[in-house]
């Protein structure tokens, strides 16, 4: 592991925590257990796109609208993270990661440490290549959803109130 990774991970973790995001580190083999202890059931999820990590039992990975409405936790992968903002990048896919990461009170995101980039410039270079090639869509998510429209800052507006990130190291 290079020093650069250590720095990026540390910076990402500090920034993300400042928005109230919870962080857990796990080796690939520990990910399923880490997710299991982070979720509040019932949970829905979308399959993780990496061979060496798995979702735990009890996470519904082919959810219906009724499942989405009834669940408390949504588990998805994060494609990227931006260290100096503490942001994670949620790529839209045909499995339904977008609604799964959006509708539940708790969003658990699984992020590979190697996918942490230092800054917005690096992130937008990645977006540029991706979007011109795939015409895909993504959300840069920083902390939980929030509003100040009701007279004070409230976390958990239309989107999740809590966000947990499992960093796979």
């Amino acid at each position: 592991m290079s020093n650069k990774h250590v720095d990026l991970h540390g910076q990402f973790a500090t920034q993300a925590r400042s928005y109230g995001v919870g962080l857990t580190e796990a080796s690939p083999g520990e990910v399923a257990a880490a997710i299991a202890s982070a979720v509040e059931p019932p949970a829905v999820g979308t399959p993780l796109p990496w061979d060496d990590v798995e979702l735990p039992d009890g996470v519904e990975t082919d959810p219906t609208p009724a499942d989405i409405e009834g669940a408390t936790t949504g588990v998805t992968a994060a494609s990227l993270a931006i260290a100096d903002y503490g942001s994670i990048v949620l790529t839209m896919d045909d499995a339904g990661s977008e609604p799964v990461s959006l509708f539940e009170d708790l969003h658990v995101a699984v992020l590979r440490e190697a996918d942490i980039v230092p800054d917005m410039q690096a992130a937008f270079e990645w977006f540029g290549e991706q979007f011109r090639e795939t015409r895909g869509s993504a959300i840069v998510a920083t902390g939980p959803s929030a509003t100040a429209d009701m007279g004070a800052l409230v976390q958990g507006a239309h989107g999740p109130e809590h966000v947990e990130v499992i960093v796979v190291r």
Partner: protein
Amino acid sequence: MSSKRDSKAAHIRHIMQTEGEAVGTNTRGFNDGRYESVAKLEDYEALKDEARAIKADAIERLPDLIDELTQTVEENGGTVYIAEDAADANEYIAEVCTETEADRLVKSKSMTSEEIEVNDHLEREGVDVVETDLGEWVLQLADEAPSHIVAPAIHKSREGIADLFNAQFNPDAELETAEELTTFAREQLGELIQGADVGMTGANFITADSGTMALVTSEGNARKTVVVPETQIAVAGVEKIVPSVEDLQPFIELIGRSGTGQDITSYISLLTPPVGSPTVDFDDPDTPVAVGDDDREFHLVLIDNGRMAMREDEDLRETLYCIRCSACSNTCANFQSVGGHAFGGETYSGGIATGWEAGVHGMDAAAEFNDLCTGCSRCVEACPVGIDIPWINTVVRDRINAGTDAKLEFLVDGLTPDSETSGPGVQKRLFGNFELLAKVGSTFAPLSNWVANAGPVSRVLEGAAGVAHDRDLPEFQRPTFREWFEDRDRGPPVDPDRTVVLYPDLYTNYMMVERGTAAVAALEALGVEVVVPSVPGAGRAPLSQGMIDTARSKAERVVETLGPYVEDGHDVVVIEPSDLAMFRGDYERLLPQDSYEPLAENSYEILEYVYGLLANGADTDGLNLADGETVAYHSHCQQRTMGLEEYSIAVLDACGYDVTTSDVECCGMAGSFGYKEQYYELAMDVGSNLEAQLREANCDHVIASGTSCTDQIGDLLGEEPSHVIELLAPNGETQ
């Protein structure tokens, strides 16, 4: 005229009483947050320059970018409709709703959709329109207009929102806290989103290369609006297009910081519609979403509505660089007191709104509130794309003047030798021709002061020209500063290090002679020979009234007079910051480059110059030194924008003073603004923040740099502050 001013004053008073507190707390919070957030950036100025360059380039080649984007979106499977105006856009959107048999359309927040008033149009066509942004929803329920372009319900208190919800929905338990209100709104809107047929969003930016639109949000309602229904409509002004995805980066880093003072908002949606996510069909609850219908429809409605004409208009063009961040609203002292319901037009509010309203709704819409921009220039450094917002306000004011009925103006014709071929109106011409007023006033001083401030004359001035009766008018002095200088016995320093021109601005020359004599004494004590030639007014007064032709002729005469001194290698020292701002900034707009540049490059604010002399080895011994005396210092708005406040503080510090500075953006007087009958109360409300800070500082001295600030602080504290240089000038050498 007078009754129009009375009703304007009443309107402003009402807004201040009902909405001022909530608006003030929120905007000042955003503004403080902006300072904190941008300070964290490694190179804020470079990022702003980059953002501006991208916008300038994009607007320059906008027609090509529209073509490129159209082709890209069509390749992606979407449809582009270029709407000439609001009616055209609304018809198209209604057609889409008809074709998709839509009963309900849910919206995320979009100022462009406010501009075209699409909600009203769709409601008339039988479509149920629901705003899903919590602030917008509150306004929809209350049937009110946004008071801020980013935080639309900024004028409403928590208690007001609770009353509204409790009255409209009669919930089982009365709603009270912000959490309860948010949860309630989320549930109500969640159901409405689930059954929606069409989702409508705006777009903060759209990239021509991939057809990706960026939405900057925090609540998550825009994400739901896009992902749930099958059909997405995005409404965006044509100016939102940037060339490539990479171009988004500086804007994403700047927009939240500049607006609400957030480093970044919760969600930046980067959508390349039709998006590749399955819809969520809550009417078919048991079919997994992954196998659901992904036959999405996407319509991009690009709105012209005056924008392409703005692009051709040299003075309005920069308005199109605007990214609607709201920095110019939050940093504006007047906006902080009244919000967008007074400082706004049909759709847009705040400083840049004058450009938008003039461009999309016309001069009448802009004329309603354009006066509220005082030209203080604090928004220029706050604007992430560096738009010269005061200039846009000045140009629009000039154009509004051109349309003003001139028939009452005989009253001031004799006193107003301006170059205006159009009719700025009695009040504007009175203040715009301040130079002649000052000459006449000074010639007849002190008699003219007694007459002008005496009850009957003061009342006539208020009735005819709208000069606030509650203000003491400036006192003209005799001898003038120049007369004093010519007549004084003292000769220049023996063997001076250099010779400078001290510019006798109108205020120093006719009203604040002491700061002129103090400047001469201080400069001479530092080994500098001073000359004070006869130079006309800088043109600040007419420019502030939108009298551009008059200001230009003043500028030409100033350069004619000062030019030869500059050519001979002399520096020009300026006491009045608003005049230095003319030399360094506004003259670029008024004069050819070769006559503007030499003066701009060789003019200095007096304390900036003293700082330079000290840095080059001059000794502070000749100045009035202190040993820890405390001073409360209010810098001048334009002085701060030029980055010159720090020199005054550094020199005071070097001379042994313990300095506390105010952090209010403007004193509220802002030239003649606070003298105007219809704005007097607003100016005093703005000033009340400064008053509180100065009183709390409780210092041995109160000092200021600008004429307006001096007048305003004098009215607020009951005692006029001195200029910085008056405090520092050697004792006994001033007049």
